[in-house]
């Protein structure tokens, strides 16, 4: 009993010290912008979102555990970096961004459940999240029912458009067509061998690629093969490739299969400096696992490479590495995830409101000039105008930029003649 008052004094003091210690790194790195100078909450938030005079809450919804954590970790890191930078620059409408991170655990029903939790319980003003198409499809009805706003970072198969989603990655035609045109012109390629993992994205992408090869490039698809997700044995299909001798191997194999495929391709004596290979699924992230020596010489077709030589990217890459470690690499999707918070901030400021309906309406035409990939603009259909680039994998796991389209390519999620 006698030392009760003593303890009463100690405990809050200790807590304060701990709080101070926890805040120290942030305080010391960031200049402290003052929050709370923005327009009144009642005018910018008429639908009861989690917005106060000084703070606004957003959700981050990715898989931090389970099989997709391999890919989604980079997206989480990019989104946190963007939020930190926005806060350092004064926040959104004078409010500091606070985030609630939920784990989709690589399980699609969990994604839907967590999205509902973020929208209904936490009333978040926007969600940065999802990675696979399956998780997006699971979350989409929730976003539409509870009127949320999702910023989705992955390149995907298209055939979708929603008021409640902004797609910051490329849809399939945007990503694929320019790459095929380039390789047909540059390498005189006429025959193509498609190999992909067996699910919706590779199948839809290859369907689009096949139409383009056959109808536009007047070439021939000499093989089209799919392997179950997670498959690790590719020797038979590699023999088939050797037999058909295609000008180009076009691949959209994903995940662990990727590693097996390139290792076995190399072991089978296929020399990627002589045999052209165009992939739409291997970013710098995947090369980490594949090993640069197994894939050097392959071409990848997407919108961003870590090695891009422009002023925005030169500030983005060091900032990312400073926060997440010198050894981390930045792939296409990671960059697209970085765009999410920024596009949301710009849209909110354009609309002068956090209301979902007003953001959805104001999105079209929002441009982000500091994007690491260069410059992007949101299209009427909620996808981004962006350039498509072809890079060549090097031994050190980076890509060397070989080609980029002269203009931004219009997103076309429902391509006519390709379905």
């Amino acid at each position, binding site marked *: 009993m006698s030392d009760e008052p003593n303890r009463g004094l100690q405990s809050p003091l200790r807590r304060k010290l701990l709080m101070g210690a926890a805040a120290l790194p942030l305080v010391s790195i960031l200049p402290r912008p003052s929050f709370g100078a923005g327009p009144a909450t009642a005018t910018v938030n008429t639908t009861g979102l989690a917005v106060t005079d000084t703070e606004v809450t957003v959700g981050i919804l990715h898989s931090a555990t389970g099989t997709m954590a391999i890919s989604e*970790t980079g997206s989480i890191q990019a989104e946190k970096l963007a939020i930190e930078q926005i806060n350092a620059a004064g926040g959104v409408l004078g409010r500091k961004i606070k985030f609630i991170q939920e784990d989709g655990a690589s399980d699609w029903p969990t994604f839907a459940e967590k999205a509902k939790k973020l929208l209904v319980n936490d009333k978040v003003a926007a969600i940065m999240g999802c990675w696979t198409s399956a998780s997006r499809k699971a979350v989409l009805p929730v976003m539409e029912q509870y009127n949320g706003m999702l910023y989705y970072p992955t390149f995907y198969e298209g055939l979708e458009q929603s008021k409640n989603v902004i797609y910051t990655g490329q849809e399939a035609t945007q990503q694929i067509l320019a790459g095929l045109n380039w390789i047909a012109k540059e390498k005189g390629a006429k025959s193509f061998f498609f190999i992909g993992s067996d699910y919706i994205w590779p199948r839809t992408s290859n369907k689009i690629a096949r139409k383009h090869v056959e109808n536009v490039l007047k070439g021939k698809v000499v093989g089209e093969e799919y*392997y179950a997700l997670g498959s690790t044995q590719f020797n*038979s299909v590699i*023999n088939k490739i*050797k*037999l058909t001798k295609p000008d180009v191997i076009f691949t959209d194999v994903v995940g662990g299969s990727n*590693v097996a495929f390139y290792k076995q391709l190399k*072991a089978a*004596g296929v020399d990627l400096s002589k045999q052209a290979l165009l992939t739409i699924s291997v970013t710098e992230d995947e090369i980490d696992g594949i090993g640069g020596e197994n894939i050097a010489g392959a071409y990848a077709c997407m919108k961003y490479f870590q090695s891009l030589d422009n002023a925005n990217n030169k500030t983005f890459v060091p900032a990312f590495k400073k926060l997440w470690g010198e050894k981390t690499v930045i792939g296409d999707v990671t960059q697209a995830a970085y765009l999410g918070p920024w596009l949301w901030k710009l849209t909110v400021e354009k609309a002068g409101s956090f209301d979902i309906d007003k953001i959805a309406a104001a999105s079209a035409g929002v441009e982000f000039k500091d994007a690491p990939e260069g410059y992007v603009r949101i299209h009427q259909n909620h996808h981004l105008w962006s350039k498509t680039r072809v890079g060549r994998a090097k031994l050190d796991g980076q890509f060397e930029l070989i080609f980029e389209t002269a203009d931004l390519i219009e997103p076309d999620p429902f391509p006519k003649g390709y379905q």
Partner: protein
Amino acid sequence: MFGDYSIGDLGSIFVMQGFAGLILFSVYVLMALGLAIIFGQMGVINMAHGEFMILGAYVTWMTSNAFQHYLPSLFSGYFFLAMLLAFLVSGALGMLVEWVLIRHLYKRPLDTLLATWGLSLILQQTYRSVFGAREVGVELPQWMLGSLKVTDSIEVPINGVFVMGLTVLITVVVSYVLYKSRWGRQVRAVVQNRIMAGAVGINTEKVDRYTFGLGCGIAGVAGSAFTMIGSTGPTSGQLYIVDTFLVVVFGGAASLLGTIASAFSISQTQSTLEFFTSGSMAKVLTLLAVVGILMLRPQGLFALKVRK
């Protein structure tokens, strides 16, 4: 599909395809051996088998890093040491797991399924926390990459030859240990009648622990070897577990010969079908065939003749 090719071309493709089948066969045997010992000899359904393999892969990765840092001159030989370490580390973890978890469940074999499944989740998350969620790339010495040119048109992957050699070696050692050595006799005695084995003076607990450790150790070596052909990440073990169980169950659980025969028939069917149809179709047809045969022979291809 073969109209446009010369006989020579076709011949070499068939040779290479036959070789692809043999490689697949070795891979299946290698990944199933450890499980065949644990499941076949002890009746434990080890769902964490894949995670023991990946432990071996991570050990290989760490060894490779250590050699690059401290002994770059010996890098070309590190793989042999890595496999040995993988065996020891996975085997030691296996013995620990047997002592903590499995030995309490020998009377409830179905519960081992749940317990080891839980163990596999714990191990996956441990790998993720320790090594990171991203896949790691295991760097191999130069001589293990690429292919051997047998003739102008026939090329054989070196890592495939390596896996085949390793499989033969391990199979020979394991069958010697199980069928010729004194310890192997004890293992089989415990399997057939635990109480009687105990009564004649066999330390059944010790036999169980070493058997489980041996199975896990072999899984570790398999995982180490598979860094040459597959990925190394926290959940990569899941890629192997289905095929592994398929091979062991199809072969008849208690028989080493059955495991080998089953690995051979599944791999040859699969790789032939993959060549003539497509990847997903081959999988469907192979699984259908396995299901059909198991309906006719529920005990698998080879079963021990035991008086019930």
